[in-house]
């Protein structure tokens, strides 16, 4: 699923890169947020530590959009948080969720919101994890170097393509959940 260490591109971000220990804006809870006000104007936000989420994330932006070779296009980097699959409450569905990574022609149903990530020595999830498309968020391009510094894994191109297709279908599907 992942590129070998020697093949990881260290000088650029790619769709499917796994970023360790970053701020997961997509999972913040607004309860407890408050403003620091100076002369009637908010000057800062306070986010209580218990609400702050720091963890691993995966890059969802198209590789072309975030390639430094195409610098003009780099405005923001879209990320999705990674969740430990061991916290799933319906254990009997995990196997089906894992298989749903690859969308096959004629398929009638899938776990479109999630993409399964296999265990790896650089990840803390012994049984694997899922990235959650529904909690995606973006960071401005001036975070680029910080994210690059925290890049620990890179998906193989065929796996990144499978993830991108699932992401596209997740947003495009017409059928409502029954």
């Amino acid at each position: 699923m992942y590129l070998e260490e020697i093949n990881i591109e260290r000088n650029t971000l790619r769709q499917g890169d796994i970023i360790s220990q970053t701020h997961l804006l997509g999972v913040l809870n607004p309860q407890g947020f408050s403003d620091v006000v100076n002369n009637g104007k908010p000057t800062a936000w306070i986010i209580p530590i218990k609400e702050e989420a720091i963890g691993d994330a995966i890059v969802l932006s198209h590789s072309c959009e975030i390639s430094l070779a195409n610098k003009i296009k780099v405005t923001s980097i879209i990320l999705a948080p990674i969740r430990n699959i061991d916290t799933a409450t319906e254990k009997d569905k995990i196997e089906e969720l894992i298989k749903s990574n690859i969308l096959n022609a004629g398929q009638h149903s899938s776990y479109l919101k999630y993409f399964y990530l296999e265990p790896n020595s650089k990840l803390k999830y012994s049984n694997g994890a899922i990235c959650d498309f529904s909690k995606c968020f973006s960071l401005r391009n001036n975070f680029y170097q910080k994210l690059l510094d925290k890049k620990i894994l890179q998906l193989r191109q065929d796996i990144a393509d499978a993830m991108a297709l699932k992401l596209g279908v997740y947003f495009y599907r017409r059928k409502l959940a029954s």
Partner: protein
Amino acid sequence: MTYEANSRLHYKNIIPIIIATPQAQDGSSNPTLDIDEIVNKVLSSEKFESGIKNMIESHIIGKEILESTYRNPEAIDNPFDAIYLAKLEPDIIFDQDQLSIESFSEIEDLSDTIHFNDGWDD
């Protein structure tokens, strides 16, 4: 105007303007056109004004590209900056990609049948 179109103007900063010369009584053109009259005709030409405007814009963008590329790589950080927007080009959409996505348009999403007890779904 696209970024490429702006770039091309660097090499095509020639503004062709046709000035109608007054005719003599016998119907022939008058070769002795007054210089002030020529200047006035050029300055009042819409094509001249548009050409000058495009050249100025392309030089501003060219200068900005030089600065951002060679002097300050972090210069572009505002995606809504007018200069940035002038560089936008449409993305290419491949028919095969579109067909792949559309072929799954009727798929049912089962995501709501599984939950994660990590405090993110409250």
